[in-house]
């Protein structure tokens, strides 16, 4: 119907687009017809052409006609809406499982063999079911080309499924407003041929953070920050975003609140580690509690050492 996707981008496209065509078709017809009749009346019965109105208080017959016909039409629309939606509800049992994890402001996709990626990779013509997991606030996973969307609710793992029908790349958006960088919370879906996907799936290291041995430790630290989406909230230039900047803190004294008590701490290895694994333990003055979640299990101890090298390097 419109060019955002091929007709068979997913198994739902046909049903949803049929509902679109029926509803928009009937709607455009009524819009044009009613507006047309109205303009015709306005022209024909203008006061200079038709100085005396002919009174008419109503007609039961007409009222019934324009109650019953629209009622039947909307029930037809309802039916096609329901039929287009119904198959979205129950994923087939043999579907390939991927866990989609949303946090402010990126998606991660975890496959059954432990592979972790930033974009969604799926094989063509095979049912895929996504377990939707939100870590902090509401998000919503939307793939326009597939006509699927489901909210991601913290504390409630929900599912969405589809069968991609065509090899290619598609957009994937967050559509539930989730704060500062909501509009940058998008990634892509790559639909691959079956063999290509199987090959891709084998290599579980391919999409680990691109740590290149030729880089300095500080550069590697920056790559780790980038791949975890840290820079959305923490700047490298000293400017205040959602959280404190990396610059100008190393070795300095900070005013923080710990368990309701104000105290002073010195920024050292221990503090950085705690700020990543238990980010709400010490809250720097001027910032808010509860916005950052622990990265334990996502960032390793060794990676934290590299991050510390990067933070140090900013003040050298």
């Amino acid at each position, binding site marked *: 119907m419109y060019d*955002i996707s091929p007709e068979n981008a997913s198994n739902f496209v046909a049903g*949803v687009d049929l*509902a*679109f065509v029926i*509803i928009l078709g*009937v*709607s*455009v017809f*009524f819009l044009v017809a009613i507006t047309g009749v*109205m303009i015709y009346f*306005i022209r024909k*019965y*203008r*006061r200079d052409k*038709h*100085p005396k*109105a*002919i*009174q*008419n208080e*109503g*007609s039961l017959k*007409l*009222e019934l006609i*324009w*109650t019953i016909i*629209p*009622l039947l039409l*909307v*029930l037809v*629309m*309802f039916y*096609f*809406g*329901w039929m*287009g*939606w119904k198959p979205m509800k129950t994923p087939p049992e043999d579907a390939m499982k991927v866990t989609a994890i949303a946090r402010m402001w990126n998606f991660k996709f975890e496959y059954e063999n432990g592979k972790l990626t930033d974009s969604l990779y799926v094989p063509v013509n095979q049912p895929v079911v996504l377990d939707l997991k939100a870590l*902090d606030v*509401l998000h919503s996973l*939307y793939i*326009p*080309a597939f*006509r*699927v*969307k489901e*909210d991601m*609710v*913290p504390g*409630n793992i929900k599912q969405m499924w589809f069968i991609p029908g065509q090899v290619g790349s598609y957009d994937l*958006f*967050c*559509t539930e*407003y989730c*704060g*500062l960088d*909501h*509009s*940058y919370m998008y990634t892509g879906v790559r639909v691959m041929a079956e063999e290509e996907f199987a090959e891709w799936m084998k290599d579980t290291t391919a999409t680990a953070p691109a740590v290149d041995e030729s880089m300095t430790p500080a550069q590697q630290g920056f790559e780790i920050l980038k791949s975890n989406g840290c820079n959305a909230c923490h700047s490298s230039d000293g400017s205040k975003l959602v959280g404190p900047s990396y610059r100008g803190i190393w070795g300095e004294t900070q005013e923080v609140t710990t368990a309701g008590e104000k105290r002073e701490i010195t920024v050292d290895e221990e503090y950085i580690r705690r700020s990543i694994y238990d980010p709400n333990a010490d809250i720097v003055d001027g910032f808010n509690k*509860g*916005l950052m979640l622990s990265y334990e299990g996502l960032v390793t101890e060794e990676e934290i050492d590299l991050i510390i090298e990067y933070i140090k390097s900013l003040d050298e």
Partner: protein
Amino acid sequence: MSETVKQGAHKSYLEETGGRKGIFKWILSTDHKRIGLLYLYSIMTWFVIGVALGIMMKLELIAPGKTIMGAQAYNATFTVHGVIMIFLIVIPGLPAVFGNFLLPIQIGAKDVAFPKLNLFSWYIYVAGSILVVASLFAGGGPPDTGWTFYAPYSFKTGTNMLPAVVGAFVLGFSSILTGLNFLVTIHRLRAPGMTFMKMPVFPWTLYGTAWIQLLATPIVGITLLMVLGERIFNIGFFDPAKGGDPILYQHLFWIYSHPAVYIMILPAMGAISEIIPTFSRKTIFGYRFIVISTLAIAFVGYFVWGHHMFTSGMSGTALFTFSILTFIVAIPSAIKVFNWVATMHQGSILLKTPFMWAASFIFVFLIGGLTGLVLGALATNVHVHDTAFVVGHFHFIVFGGTGFAFFGAVHYWFPKIYGRMYDESWAKTGWLIFFIGYLALYGPMLYLGIKGMPRRYFDYLPEYHGPNILSSLGALVMVSGFLIILINLIRSARHGEKAEANPWGGTNLEWQISSPPSLENFDEIPTIDKATYKYD
């Protein structure tokens, strides 16, 4: 009937000051007409701010990437735009301004049932508005949650949520008290002979609205209190980490906020039902069906809130029910549209500005209603939910519907309110520019949404650029039209030609008394012996 009342036989309500001077003759007066105007001026002030915020958003979206402000500022802008427009303008809107001014007159009463309570409601309104607007300037920056305050983000953000939420809570009381006042007024103060079925349509729509205000508003009050409890005491109603449920918040919020859409649109339908018969010089077609459909909308409107949450994971049964009820609630609105158009048939139509607004209202309201069908059907809803399509749809209903009716009403009753005429040719020019700009502004949003552009996006992918340019330019055209309209009205209120008592040849009671009306509206309470909208 008091058709014998002569123009200028009494001092008008504008000259009757009760011995008070300056601003006090306004803020201490319990005259329903002055209170209506107090609302008009406060609402128009906020509206200018709301429009300015809207324009800033459209300028930001004229190109991908940062244009005039950063993401945080943009998020705050759409939040405050929404809060101001919904809570300060559209919800009080027509009932508070025209309901206050006209309800007693149209039913043949000297004032509302509780005039002091009426003035007090305005004070509450002002207090709530100031709190909301203060949230812009005080504390940790303007709120950035969207006007829906969805949990759990609304508890986590460091911005200045509290004043905005408290403000919305306070505003609710103004709405409840106004609703109560109107209900009692309609039940107790109708002139002798004015049975319910002889009452004009505008008071009927206020009646339906008042019930919603009275019954639905307390729910949002409680919900906002829960938000406060959540933020201040960390109770955890909506926090999954403490066993709460964020979806519960959405249910509570929409149980009020969906009926609130009908608070916005019913009086607008009432105003249109007054304008079309007058300028067609013809009795309204299907009066009884218009009245019944008004009550049907007010009633069924309570049971469709779930259609705001089709992707939030409700059961299939809930989705089925909410979807089918949503389609059914479309029928009474369709009945009204058919009856309005039928009223024009064989009429004697005078193309004055209020009629132009009413006719264009029908067009934009149709677009709003028909796009609502796309959102009511499950399959299509899932695709366009939370996209620009939804933003387009509700602006067609709330701004195209309520806004167009409001401008139509302002022009229609302007001679009655001020005793002066607005300038017809400027008013029509303003309308035309506004209308063209309006369509260019909101039409592209529908297209963008179908193409998959999410709403509340500070930035967007380059593939969405074209329609966004058109939309932003449309906004600038529309605002030019708005300024023409506004300047014309302000100028005409002071310098317009003197108006007659009944410049349009209307049949309802407000046209049988002088323009502007005297303090007590009627010398003697009229006795009603014939149906409303009689032209013979």
